[in-house]
Each structure stands twice: as C-alpha cells, then as structure tokens.
C-alpha cells in the first residue's frame, strides 16, 4: 500500500503501521498513538452530531404536528404505557453506567472485567428491546398504527389525522432509536469478545471508547423521547 511513497519509517512489518511500542501500532500518517486516538474521537463526535441532527429533525417534526393536533396528541399518548417507558429509561441509564465502567476497565488493562461490563450492557439492550416488543405488540393489537394503517376504534375526534400522525412519529422515532439499540448491542458484543481476548489496554482502547460514546448518545436520545412521548400532557 505504501510502496509508492518514500517510507520515512523503518517499518519492520512491511505494512502501513508503525511500531509505537512492543505491542501497539499506529498508522503511518499519525505521529503517536495519542494523536491517532484523538483523531478517531473527533471523527466519532462529528458522526454523533449527524445523529443529533437526524433525530433533531424528527423531534422538530413531532413538535410541529403536536402544535397542529394538540388534542389528538394528548389522547393518543394515553395509549402509551408509562410504566414500560419509565422502566426502559431506567434500563438504558443503567446500561450507560455499565458502558462507562467497561471503558474504564478497558483503559485500565482489565480486559475480563471490561468484557463482563459489556455483556451486562448487551443484556440491558436485550431487555430494552423486549419491553419495546411488548409495547409494539400491544399497539398492533389495538390498531394503533402509523398513517394509513391506523384503524383504532373509539377516538373522540372522528376522522382526524392527528392520531395516525402521532403513531407515525411514534413508530418512526422509537423504531429508529430501537435500530440504534440493536446496532449498538451487536457492536458491544463484538467489543466484549475482543476485550476478553485481551486486545485492549491503556495504550489502545479506541473502539471501546468510541462505541461507548455511541451508546451514550442512544441513551441521550431516549432521555428526550421518553418525556415527549410518554409524559407530555
């Protein structure tokens, strides 16, 4: 890969990585491991901003429609189970804690401990999705579906598009958030396996740190989703 360029480093591996110390490598366009870490982290934060703006757009849309159909949105939100939402909030907050501890364990050379914390985090994600599945099933049975598919009986304002609009946003936003939880959980499982193998140390724990940031963002989005959907009157 780097054969066409003048190789400034005496690279014993013959690839584009440079030996920083006995075990860890940084890519040849970085000077130090720390510079490489910082660069990765900036990249991750830029990605997280795009996530904030993605969900932000949906939140703004939700706000617009709530303004347009205030009465219907209040009635529709009564169909959401506040207890389920509150439990899921607690579960995600706890998982953010275990995620933080996993990063902490990984950077203090405690691979096995990091793996345990990561698996607990995956477990929290699984419980979260189970609660979500339970809630969704309940909505499906009642015909509380997005847009065109909405066929719930007993609404006070007959013929209004407000109810189906509410559930369009509900399924879109909690669905997109749920997709993030699933992707996050898969990445966390991958990290747990790598941590158990002892691939992370105080010199190199970038993937744990960055996916940790992603996981906290998933928590952060839920922090806004929960009150806006389940609690607003």
């Amino acid at each position: 890969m780097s054969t066409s360029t003048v190789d400034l480093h005496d690279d014993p591996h013959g690839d584009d990585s440079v030996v920083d110390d006995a075990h860890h490598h940084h890519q040849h366009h970085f000077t130090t491991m720390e510079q490489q870490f910082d660069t990765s982290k900036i990249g991750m934060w830029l990605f997280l901003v795009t996530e904030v703006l993605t969900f932000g757009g949906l939140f703004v849309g939700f706000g617009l429609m709530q303004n347009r159909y205030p009465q219907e949105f209040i009635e529709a939100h009564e169909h959401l189970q506040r207890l389920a939402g509150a439990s899921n909030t607690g579960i995600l907050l706890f998982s953010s804690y275990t995620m933080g501890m996993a990063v902490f364990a990984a950077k203090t050379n405690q691979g096995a401990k990091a793996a345990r914390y990561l698996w607990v985090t995956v477990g929290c994600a699984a419980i979260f999705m189970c609660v979500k599945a339970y809630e969704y099933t309940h909505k499906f049975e009642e015909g509380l579906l997005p847009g065109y598919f909405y066929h719930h009986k007993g609404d006070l304002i007959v013929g209004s598009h407000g109810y189906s609009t509410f559930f369009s946003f509900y399924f879109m936003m909690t669905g997109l958030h749920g997709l993030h939880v699933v992707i996050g959980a898969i990445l966390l499982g991958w990290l747990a396996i790598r941590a158990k193998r002892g691939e992370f140390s105080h010199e190199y724990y970038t993937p744990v740190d960055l996916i940790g940031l992603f996981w906290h963002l998933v928590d952060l989005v839920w922090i806004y989703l929960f009150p806006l959907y389940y609690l607003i009157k």
Partner: protein
Amino acid sequence: MSTHHAHVTDEKAEARSYLLTLLALLFLTVITVGASYIDFGQGNVVIALAIATMKATLVALFFMHLAHDKPVNGLIAVAGFIFLGLFLMFDLLDITTRRDAIPQNLHAPVVQTATPAGAPAVPTAAPAAAPPAGTAPAPGAKKE
C-alpha cells in the same frame, strides 16, 4: 489517553463519578415521572424538557467525558446543538406567525366580509379565499 499511568485513587474516583451520575439520572427520572402526574398546564412541557436537558447534560459531561475531554470534542457537540436550535427557532417562528396554515382555522373559514374596523389590513383570510375556477393550485399549497 492522557492518563496513561492512572493511580488507584484516580480509578476509584472515576468509578465513583459514574455511580453518582447514574444515581442523579435515576433521581431526575423519578422527578420527571412524578411531575407528569401533576397538572401544571403549559408548565408540564417546560418542566419535562428542562429535566431532560439536565439529564442530557449529565450524560454528555460525565458518561461522554466532555467535562474532562479535549475542548474540540465539546465544541463539535455544542455546535451540533446550536444548529438544532437554529432549526427549532425558525420552525417556531413559522408556527407562531403563520396562522392560516393551522387546520383549526380552516374548519371555520374566515368569511370574506369586511375586516373588523381597526384590524390591520393584513390578508389573513388567504385559505378561505377560493381561487377562481380552473386556476391550478399553486405548488406547495396543498390543503385538506
């Protein structure tokens, strides 16, 4: 990466800070659920969003390390929220000033009688004004 040689006391302190953050977040969750059972009128939304923002700040500062991280990461995060704020601001401007687009107003169209005396001569009755027959509706003027 800056704390290569973390001391045992630092480790204890960091673990404890995560635990305290979690407890604060759970406490705020209980508060926000409790507050939702009390009717504050318009205040409910404000309280819910204020508490959510407090929780989000705790997560960003301590779980996401922005409190101790290199400033550039915090700058990126804050910039993201500033742009979201801009988006929201212009959206609110639109909602609060364009009255004729709200369906409730369309249910009872403003009759094209003379505007009340003293009212500003702003054409507020735009939606009710039926276009001449055969006129194609303006693009984007979709109404139900």
